[in-house]
């Protein structure tokens, strides 16, 4: 039985993105709860090779053996036996928009996916519950050899690539929640960009949770071969339900020599979701990896996109933005591990807390011995909008090399009364003035987003700010 979540009672019924499609029906709905049998059943339904079944079972044993993390946010209300671990709406992913079932298409219509496609975005992979239901890659990308599939389909079609890379960046025993994901993963995106290929337009996928108490455990694997480049964009909105829901994804990215990957997430889970995600990239010689991570929704988010700089002159960037309203805790940040000489990194974090919300920046910069010439800058700014809001900064640094330049700086501030007064003297009301100041505060990150997302981000901030007093 789920513990009532006080946060959910406060979710207004008119929540803009929180609706539930009554016609939705799932073909495979397992019983709630997790066991060895559930893990085996997921693998059997998917018709996976034996090595994947074995990997899932190995991960399940790690999940069972590990205690719950005691740091970060409060996870005590998560009941792992009160969650569905596998639900699918269609049996297999489809290639054409026309083949997508009506009720799922309506879901996407409300999210505006076709519009995004009309804007010549390169491809759309939508995730409805746990399986990828829709895929469309522009023909020219296919000709270039770019693979953009649901992860399940990717495993079936390209088992040799999978076996080489899957679970190498985030091993099954990495942490309790990554172990859980490895045991029960379903869906996600699989991208392979061949040598020297530049994908000019962003690849997009939408993720939704749509069955009450449905855990979503998508698994994304991106491989950018030597000298290639790709930008992957993932955005989430979810219906507002009345009991706690769990989202625990794993994203693994391999950026080979001279390649460049940018991974952009805008996330607006409804306020009952526990969002506990492990995201990690490895960057080889002269490679560039960038995480752009926006966290607006959820009850608790714990997410620290990380980059292992393994080759000389590799560069990593994490741009993180977090907005926590009442009863929300955004525990987000970034990690960069300098494991090769002359590597550089930049972490920029902007967080805003409002009402009784809490934002925490938690990050790590580690420089191994011998990584001379490494440079890293970490910059964290927090804006606290109410007297009851809270902001924390936990920046870890472990420097074991002298020939480096490592710096960290943080500021915490409130919206200044002079700033508000100035804007209000120009005819704005207080909410508009505050929203403008907040939008200015997050501008350095928003300008890095694709245009549709930048607009959505500003709109979401505005929605969040309604009723907020600076």
């Amino acid at each position, binding site marked *: 039985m789920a513990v009532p979540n006080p946060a959910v009672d406060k979710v207004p019924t008119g929540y803009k993105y929180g609706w539930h499609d009554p016609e939705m029906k799932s073909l495979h709905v397992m019983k709630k709860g997790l066991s060895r049998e559930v893990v085996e059943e997921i693998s059997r339904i998917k018709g996976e090779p034996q090595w994947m079944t074995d990997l899932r079972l190995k991960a399940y044993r790690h999940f069972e053996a590990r205690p719950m993390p005691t740091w970060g946010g409060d996870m005590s209300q998560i009941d792992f036996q009160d969650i569905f671990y596998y639900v699918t709406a269609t049996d297999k992913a489809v290639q054409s928009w026309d083949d997508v079932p009506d009720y799922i298409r309506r879901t996407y219509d409300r999210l505006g996916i076709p519009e995004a496609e009309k804007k010549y975005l390169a491809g759309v992979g939508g995730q409805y519950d746990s399986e990828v239901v829709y895929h469309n890659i522009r023909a020219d990308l296919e000709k270039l050899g770019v693979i953009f599939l649901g992860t399940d389909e990717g495993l079936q079609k390209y088992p040799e690539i999978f076996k080489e890379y899957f679970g190498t960046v985030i091993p099954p025993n990495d942490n309790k929640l990554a172990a859980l994901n490895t045991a029960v993963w379903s869906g996600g995106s699989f991208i392979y960009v061949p040598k020297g290929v530049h994908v000019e337009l962003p690849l997009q996928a939408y993720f939704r949770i749509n069955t009450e108490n449905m855990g979503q455990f998508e698994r994304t694997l991106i491989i950018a071969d030597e000298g290639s480049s790709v930008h992957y964009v993932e955005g989430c909105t979810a219906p507002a339900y009345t009991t706690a829901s769990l989202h625990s994804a794993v994203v693994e990215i391999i950026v080979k020599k001279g390649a460049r990957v940018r991974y952009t997430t805008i996330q607006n889970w409804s306020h009952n979701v526990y969002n506990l995600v492990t995201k990690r990239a490895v960057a080889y010689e002269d490679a560039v990896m960038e995480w752009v991570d926006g966290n607006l929704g959820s009850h608790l988010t714990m997410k620290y996109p990380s980059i292992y700089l393994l080759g000389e002159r590799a560069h990593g960037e994490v741009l993180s933005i977090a907005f926590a309203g009442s009863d929300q805790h955004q525990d987000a940040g970034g990690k960069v591990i300098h494991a090769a000489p002359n590597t550089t990194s930049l972490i920029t974090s902007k967080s805003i807390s409002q009402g009784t919300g809490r934002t925490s920046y938690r990050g790590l910069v580690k420089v191994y*011995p011998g990584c001379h010439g490494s440079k890293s800058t970490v910059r964290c700014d927090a804006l606290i909008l109410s*007297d009851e809001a809270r902001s*924390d*900064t*936990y920046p870890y640094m472990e420097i074991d090399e002298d020939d480096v330049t*490592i710096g960290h700086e943080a500021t915490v501030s409130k919206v200044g009364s002079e700033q508000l007064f100035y804007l209000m003297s120009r005819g704005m009301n207080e909410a508009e003035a505050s929203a403008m100041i907040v939008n200015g505060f997050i501008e350095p990150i928003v300008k890095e987003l694709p245009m549709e997302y930048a607009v959505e981000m500003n709109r979401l901030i505005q929605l969040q700010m309604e009723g907020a007093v600076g």
Partner: protein
Amino acid sequence: MTIQTTQIQSGGLDATTVAQISSGEPGWLRELRADWWGTVDANPWPTGAEEEWRRTSLDDLPRDGGLLLDPPMATYDLDPELAARGVIFSDLASAVREHGDLVKARLGQNQTLPAQMPFWGRSLAAWTGGTFLYVPKGVVIDGLLTARTSLPSGTFTYLPHTLVILEEDASATLFEEVSSPDGQAVWFGGTADVQVGYGARLRYANLQRLGDGVWRIGAQRVDVGQDANVTTLNAEIGSAISKVGMDVRMTGKGGTSRLLGLLAAGGSQSIDFNSCQDLIGSHTTSDLLYLSALYDAAHASFYGVTRVRPEAKQTSSYQECRNLLLSPKAGAEPIPVLEIETNDILRCGHGATAGAIDPVQRFYAQSRGMTAEAAERMIVRGFFERVVAQIDSEPIKARVLDALAARIGSVEEEAA
């Protein structure tokens, strides 16, 4: 100086030892020691899982050395005129004998950060030395009060406790220096409880020149009263392992604290500080500046928390930790944490850096005819200047620079 045989209690620290050092003491102190021993006996030793203990392992702490029973006492020089006005400056044991009621009311009444409680409790149970300073209401001491201690050779445990009390509008500058010979496995667990009252002003400097075999496991608690002004300086030069927890409580409205640190380490030394600047009262200010220069395979960690409580309005705070890495094997882990629970703040932030000497600075100095070594000395000395310049007592500054010269070399020689 007279040579005296050092008395060391045999065996490790236990209830019997605590009872034994307490024999002949007043009943209230025997009880106080027993109570504190009860708290540490019941509580587990840090396991290394605690955030503050992740970077220093206690596995090799020399904990079997007997307790140092008759530590060499510092000479507590006090102007008779000040003594006549009620100032007390002595070792803690003498203060217990001569001013029992006063000490009884203030000794061992406070706890400190959970991470340091095992050591705070051990020190309060088994102290055999330490300084006591009491400055009555309105008494302003212009001169410097110095307590300098040289520990003997031998393997032992020494857990002195210093108690500093400044009453309303009092003012004082206290300098404590401790040194010991190299090559001795010693557990030095000095603690300090500093209580600064309404409108009082305290400068409190600690110079640590312990030998290269010493484990210094320390704890300081500072209570800053309303409109009080406190500056603390920790200059850490010696010891094998140094782990100190600073618990700074900005309790009273309008209080100010400045927390300064100078850390110079070489060899395989490890220095690990954790701090909590707890802003509880409104209109309080707390600024921390710790600078470390790390040679050879030395390692410095700093885990500092600034906490602004919901009820603390209009506070200002900053935490800055800079590390100069002077060898490829040197390392630093600065972790400045903010926990801000109100939006009504004037200023709050932190900065942390780690890196080598800027090659441009080095090149410039050498282009002016300095040797590489002289250039490095001068740059390190310049790096420390931001703290050194804030030491407003010339005798303390001279002692600190003298101690630093042992590690970084003397810049003055170069100039001459």
